[in-house]
């Protein structure tokens, strides 16, 4: 009832100017923003997942130095706001005007670049979001690894396999079932968190909308445009998540539950037979 009332009031309030929303929905600047938002989300998540899994494996290492380093990383990147981290990467040239690769403590320099040229706003956003995400993914991956029965590790050990081999071949594939659902949530959350990159002038979806309404003052309409795109993208991600989860459930249950599409198809077929 409330939802219906809201839709009714939204549709009949002329101040919403739905026409303007329609005009800008497929504006080239908005579409470019959508593309950059997707790129930012994908790259940041890939960095987050790869580093997160590495951090989780390090965290569970018997070597206290290795697990300590991982703990320190997670402590720092989870303990400070991601917005602060983004700004930090954006302004890093103030701290280190020149970045170089070489032997530390006065050794020869192999490559060197001006920090401002190297770390463009987009790079700063990717680093900030990706490295922050890694800390969260590390905890998710660790929970997944710990959820795998210890008998699996023992069986692999008794066959002569070694720690990293066991992790890669036996434990991580099984941990995936536990890791995937929260990773889907993280991806959806990342898609929205990437809007923070607007603060450091990355022309992703939100900043693209802001650039337009700062000129034409159609603030609400452009925010609605951005929201429609965010909703569309999160919806697609949720559907993708469902199928990935199904894939990794293989081996644990004898029969996979039907997908929604299959359910509909069967329902239609059953009805036809009824007639």
């Amino acid at each position: 009832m409330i939802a219906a009332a809201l839709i009714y009031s939204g549709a009949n309030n002329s101040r919403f100017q739905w026409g303007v929303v329609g005009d800008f929905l497929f504006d080239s600047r908005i579409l470019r923003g959508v593309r950059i938002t997707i790129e930012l989300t994908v790259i940041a998540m890939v960095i987050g997942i790869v580093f997160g899994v590495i951090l989780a494996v390090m965290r569970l290492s018997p070597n206290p130095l290795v697990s300590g380093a991982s703990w320190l990383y997670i402590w720092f990147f989870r303990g400070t706001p991601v917005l602060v981290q983004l700004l930090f990467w954006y302004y890093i040239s103030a701290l280190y005007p020149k970045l170089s690769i070489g032997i530390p403590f006065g050794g020869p320099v192999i490559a060197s670049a001006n920090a401002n040229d190297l770390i463009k706003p987009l790079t700063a956003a990717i680093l900030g979001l990706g490295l922050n995400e890694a800390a969260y993914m590390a905890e998710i991956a660790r929970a997944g690894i710990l959820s795998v029965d210890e008998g699996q590790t023992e069986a692999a050990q008794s066959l002569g396999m070694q720690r990293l081999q066991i992790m890669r071949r036996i434990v991580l594939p099984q941990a995936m079932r536990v890791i995937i659902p929260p990773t889907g949530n993280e991806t959806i959350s990342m898609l929205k968190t990437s809007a923070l990159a607007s603060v450091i002038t990355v022309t992703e979806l939100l900043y693209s909308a802001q650039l337009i309404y700062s000129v034409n003052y159609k603030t609400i309409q452009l925010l609605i445009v951005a929201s429609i795109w965010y909703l569309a993208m999160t919806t697609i991600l949720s559907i993708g998540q469902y199928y990935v989860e199904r894939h990794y459930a293989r081996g644990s249950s004898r029969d996979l539950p039907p997908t929604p599409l299959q359910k509909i198809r069967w329902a239609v077929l059953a009805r036809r037979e009824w007639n």
Partner: protein
Amino acid sequence: MELMVKAEGVHKSFGRLEVLKGITLEVKPGEVMCVLGPSGSGKSTFLRCINHLEKIDAGRLYVDGELVGYQQRGDKLYELRESEVAKERAQIGMVFQRFNLFPHMNVLHNVIEAPTRVKGVRSEQAVRKARELLDRVGLADKIDSYPAQLSGGQQQRVAIARALAMEPKLMLFDEPTSALDPELVGDVLDAMRQLARDGMTMVVVTHEIGFAREAGDTLVFMDEGVVVEQGEPREVLSNPKHERTQAFLSKVL
């Protein structure tokens, strides 16, 4: 003749609980030793010490003349590096109470995983060997199945084939039939009898008195972390000398 397993005064504690209080045992090549005892007697722990899944706290444990998990320099023992422990374990097969097959791999890949990844056996060769072993345990037709699609008895026979694929010189069985429905026990015991006839050296922790009597060369009775009695199975079973053995057997027979 070199002994396959030699334990000298093996001690093991979990925190303040002393589980093994000086185990001294010998297993000759080709021998089938069955270990009996009430739960909590330390028999499974001892078995797990033989392939270093548990570290021993005192004593010496040798497999095929080599110290398990340690290296002796002078009077002191130094723990081996992971890769060296793994190399020792690769020569010792183990079968678990709860099978521990890899659920994300089908039967074939369960069996060929270790030979190809650990020993570097070529894939075709590993597959040929796997078919042969699965045929031997009567599961040639299940090669593409996943563990969840098999009964407990079938899973345990795959686990036996998986261990044998590494061509071990010693097989350890940790209560291999305890998690099985009664009607499935027979097939697993048959596979183990076959293995014993083929001359495999085996240490079997079990509650199957019948198996111990027919297939075992030696029977060891453990209680409260010590070996109470050992000898020829028929002799120990029909004529137990120690009262603790008598008490245990009167309960299970």
